């Protein structure tokens, strides 16, 4: 816990960058391991092989967020 309110940056054509104290959980309420990372990138293109995290695949599929 960082004591910092969560912020989420919608990176253009890329992931959601999550900073601060956001709890990541499965639908069953199990915590998702952040692997010690304070800042994580959540996939929003659907193509990552390590969901919910981004693995950079959005750059190969040409994902457009149109934002």
């Amino acid at each position: 816990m960082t004591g910092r309110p969560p912020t989420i940056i919608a990176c253009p054509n890329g992931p959601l960058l999550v900073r601060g104290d956001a709890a990541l959980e499965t639908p069953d309420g199990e915590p998702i391991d952040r692997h010690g990372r304070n800042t994580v990138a959540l996939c929003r293109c659907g193509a990552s092989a390590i969901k919910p995290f981004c693995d950079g695949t959005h750059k190969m599929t040409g994902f457009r967020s149109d934002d």
Partner: protein
Amino acid sequence: MSGVATGPSMGRVNSPAASTAVPATPSQARYEPPRFSARGPISSALLEALGRGIREAGESLGGLEHSTREAIAASPDVIRDDDLQLSLLILHGLHYGGVVDSDDDWEWHPALVAARVAIERAFEAELRRQVPVPELPNPSSEDVAAALFELTKPTPGPSLSRYVARKASEEQLREYLVLRSIYTLKEADAQTWAVPRLQGRAKAALMEIQTDEYGAGDPERMHSAIFARAMRGLGLDDRYGTYIDCVPAVTIASFTMMTMFGFNRSLRGATAGHFSAYEMTSSIPNRYLAQGVRRLGFGDDIAWYFDEHVEADSVHEQIAGRDLSGGLAEAEPSLLADIMWGANCSLIVDGWGSAEALACWEAGRSALRMPLPSGAER
């Protein structure tokens, strides 16, 4: 040889009370013979001096700056010059530690600082000749990040990491780790030099990335430590310097370049751009590398380093593009050209090293300058 930890360096022999003075006698100087050889007159003069006491050798180094300038003038290409690149690695190593185990007082010896600066200035000039500045975006965070992502976008076709994924032998995987070890055993340190040279948003962004690189408080998770573990898992010696003889000048140049960028305030723009491009070209290749590691039958312990970078660098590339490079461009628009140039330096210089290694493998040759030292592998 395996399982040799890169522990803290041996203690200084001279007492703490004498730490502001040069050691009283040469015999008190700390020195261990390096695990690599000189490649020409400058690296040979350096290794010889470091092997003697600072007082004794210090006096004979008066001609070093002059001979360094002569070597630079005679060099057709400082980027690929074995003697000058190894010399710069040795000189940078006095600040990092662990390259040549010599007395700590050498770090700021004026003759060595002068030689380092002379090589760095020539190296930077050669990089500016050979690496063009890409088209410049507006100096806004969004536009700089978009331009960097465009510059570094994945390209189809042959690459070293795809070769490792599909075809590399165990021996070639070991060669890959050896080539990569020149930087990766000191991963992130080259950029940390830049922290006090940046301010505000760019500094915070660099530290946000570095915290992750250094394991966020867990030394076992430090990226350089995870890499050392992968080396040991493949039967390689993880002490810095064991394989320097095996590595071509252009691979050393990839590391001395990023150290030089981090080490010089005038190059802080290049550091930001270089690091951004480095992070942006990491997650996808590391996925291929992890595939190759598993195809060859190695487990998660060895793949960990590559798996970690798939996830970590997908975060880092966003921070680096938007906040480090983008933040720096907004704060100091005059650095925009260096930011984009530094990014291109990463792509082009690292690309030369990878292309040469790939060409060797495809021709059925080793990518190393000389075979691995016997006893240094399984």
